[in-house]
């Protein structure tokens, strides 16, 4: 079982805990294949999706995960709520907690918001993405996707390409794949590589080709134009030419390399349509695995026994 009551980031998980979650997810994934997609595991539990940033897939994924396990869910989004009236995160959380909820899933634009929340509430907090810090369930679903296809997470070369600086997905995946025994290479424009990135455990590749060459997993990141306060590269066209993943760059990777993307994709900027829709792409598989890992996390934090 998990050692901490919250899931705030991959960095604080041990390899055995990641393994446990992934295997739990594999067994719960079977529920999604059933005719009646519901088990009573979390009946009588209530989960709040507290979303301060727009999100469709992550929120839907958490909501369905909770519902397949029979938990009740409410969705609280910042727009059209007390947040717009100036309520602080601390006060919002306290209010929700008084409604006898069992867990809070939070998506927030501030790095550290999940950890902040965890300091102020007693129920488990699940980080669904905090600013440019971590997005642990995304990394878990990426690892599950690779595990299912490759049978292992050990000894693989994983290339993460693009906006590493603003990417919580990159951070969580660097921590996760490294803990599980893979080697993570990062590449992207110099303006989008964070300071001392190698101290996170990644290898800073000399270029995209260097990162992708002989890789087992290639993961272009979404170019988050909304997070860039200043232009970090001249034009999307130039970005695609030098850093975008197309079939030609993908051919540098191993023949059976997997292509992952956290979505939503900017077609023709970080990833070509041909590559995205090609045989190596697991983007749809990732979505399905997302529900499974979220079921596992909810189950392990609010349903299962904990040390």
């Amino acid at each position: 079982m998990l050692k901490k009551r919250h899931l705030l980031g991959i960095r604080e998980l041990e390899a055995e805990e990641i393994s446990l979650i992934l295997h739990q997810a594999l067994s719960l994934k079977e529920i999604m294949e059933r005719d009646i997609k519901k088990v009573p595991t979390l009946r009588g539990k209530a989960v709040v999706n507290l979303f301060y940033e727009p999100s469709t897939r992550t929120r839907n994924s958490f909501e369905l995960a909770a519902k397949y396990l029979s938990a009740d869910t409410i969705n609280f989004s910042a727009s059209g709520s007390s947040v717009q009236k100036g309520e602080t995160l601390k006060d919002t959380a306290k209010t929700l907690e008084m409604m006898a909820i069992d867990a809070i899933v939070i998506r927030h634009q501030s790095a550290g918001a999940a950890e902040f929340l965890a300091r102020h509430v007693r129920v488990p907090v699940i980080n669904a993405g905090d600013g440019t810090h971590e997005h642990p369930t995304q990394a878990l679903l990426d690892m599950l996707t690779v595990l299912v296809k490759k049978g292992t997470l050990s000894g693989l070369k994983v290339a993460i390409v693009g906006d590493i600086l603003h990417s919580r997905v990159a951070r969580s995946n660097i921590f996760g794949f490294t803990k599980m025994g893979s080697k993570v290479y990062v590449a992207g424009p110099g303006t989008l590589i964070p300071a001392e990135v190698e101290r996170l455990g990644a290898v800073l590749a000399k270029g995209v080709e260097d990162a992708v060459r002989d890789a087992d997993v290639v993961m272009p990141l979404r170019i988050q134009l909304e997070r860039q306060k200043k232009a970090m590269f001249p034009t999307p066209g130039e970005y695609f030419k030098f850093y975008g993943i197309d079939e030609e760059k993908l051919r540098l990777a191993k023949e059976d390399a997997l292509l992952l993307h956290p979505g939503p994709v900017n077609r023709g900027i970080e990833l070509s349509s041909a590559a995205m829709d090609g045989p190596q792409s697991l983007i749809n598989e990732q979505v399905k695995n997302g529900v499974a890992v979220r079921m596992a996390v909810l189950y392990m934090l609010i349903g299962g026994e904990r040390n």
Partner: protein
Amino acid sequence: MKVLLKGARVLDPSRGLDGILDVLIDGERITLIGEDIKAEDAKVIDLSGLLVVPGLVDMHVHLRDPGLEYKEDIESGAKSAAAGGFTAIACMPNTVPPVDNAAMVSYIASKAERVGLSRVFPIGCISKGREGRELAEMGEMAMAGAVAFSDDGNCVSDASLMRRALMYAGDFGKVVIDHCEDPTLSAGGVMNEGYVSTLLGLPGIPRSAEEVMVARDVILAKETGAPVHIAHVSTKGSVEIIRRAKAEGIPVTCEVAPHHLVLTEDAVMGYNTNAKVNPPLRTEEDVEALIEGLKDGTIDAIVSDHAPHSMDEKDVEFDKAAFGISGLETSLGLVLTFLVGAGKLSLEEVVEKMSANPARILKIEGGALKEGALADITVIDLKKKWAVESAKFFSKGKNTPFEGWELKGKAVMTMVGGRIVYSEKQY
């Protein structure tokens, strides 16, 4: 009324004074320093085992008054200063409204006088409204008692305005203090850019944001010949630029804050908003360079950069939290424990950097123990062990990253103009 301070170790490095001596005070001034003074009409205060130094001067504090009194006001700030061992403080003009005219300077000076604790010297704005566009009325403010000019909190990013400010303030014999931060480089940043910002996913403030402005100011001071004082130096690069400038004879002085001498960016781990400060906490390499700068005279003064905030402004998401540390009541203890106690700085150097040098830079009376001088005196118990407890701060700002830290050495009595304004014992 006469007061006789008996039996303390009296230390004034500016005059080479160091010994077990008595200090006789008549009214607001010192009348005699010597061995075994007899004065039958004086009230005798026995300070055996304690250290008497010239009153400490903190040339960089924020009192938040007027406009932000929920954070601090002149009375709570002056009490905090007295408790921290400071007989004089200079307060920054980033109040609401800012101190950019003579009436505002007079308000602070007169309120501080009414409070009657530590001396409070107002610093006026460089620019009208602290907007960095037009020069404020520095002459009028100087007449009303402003001791220096600064847009602290903001850097004067317009180089032409900075150049004119240096030349104009020089006419009135006042120094310009610059908060060096290129806003185009620091924009959006909330901590040092480096490993910890990468780990936590927080936007970083690169060292270059400070250093390009330090270099610019040095060049302007050289060209104009007018003095510039660099506020809260935080990087190794800044120390190197200032060291070279001083060697060239350029009129530049600078200061450092205790938190930059004892903490690194690691203090931010866990999204600790009490360690969110501007300029940000840097790395071990910078800390070492700052201490080296203090030792070789590159850095002239130690200041608290006392920046009190309410809990509501700190108990929030890290990027939304206010920058700043409430520092008046921990400054001396930190310096004595981590610099003097660790053998990195001598007691004499500390007294120079916390008293004589800031007094000289601001051209205010103080920083010396001698016959005829103001009886502004700090009494220190070097052996006293104490723990930082923000709940007991006199300051309204409880925002400290040093909560619970065990320190050794503390001001136990503060005397301003012969009057005891703070004392841990009843005399």
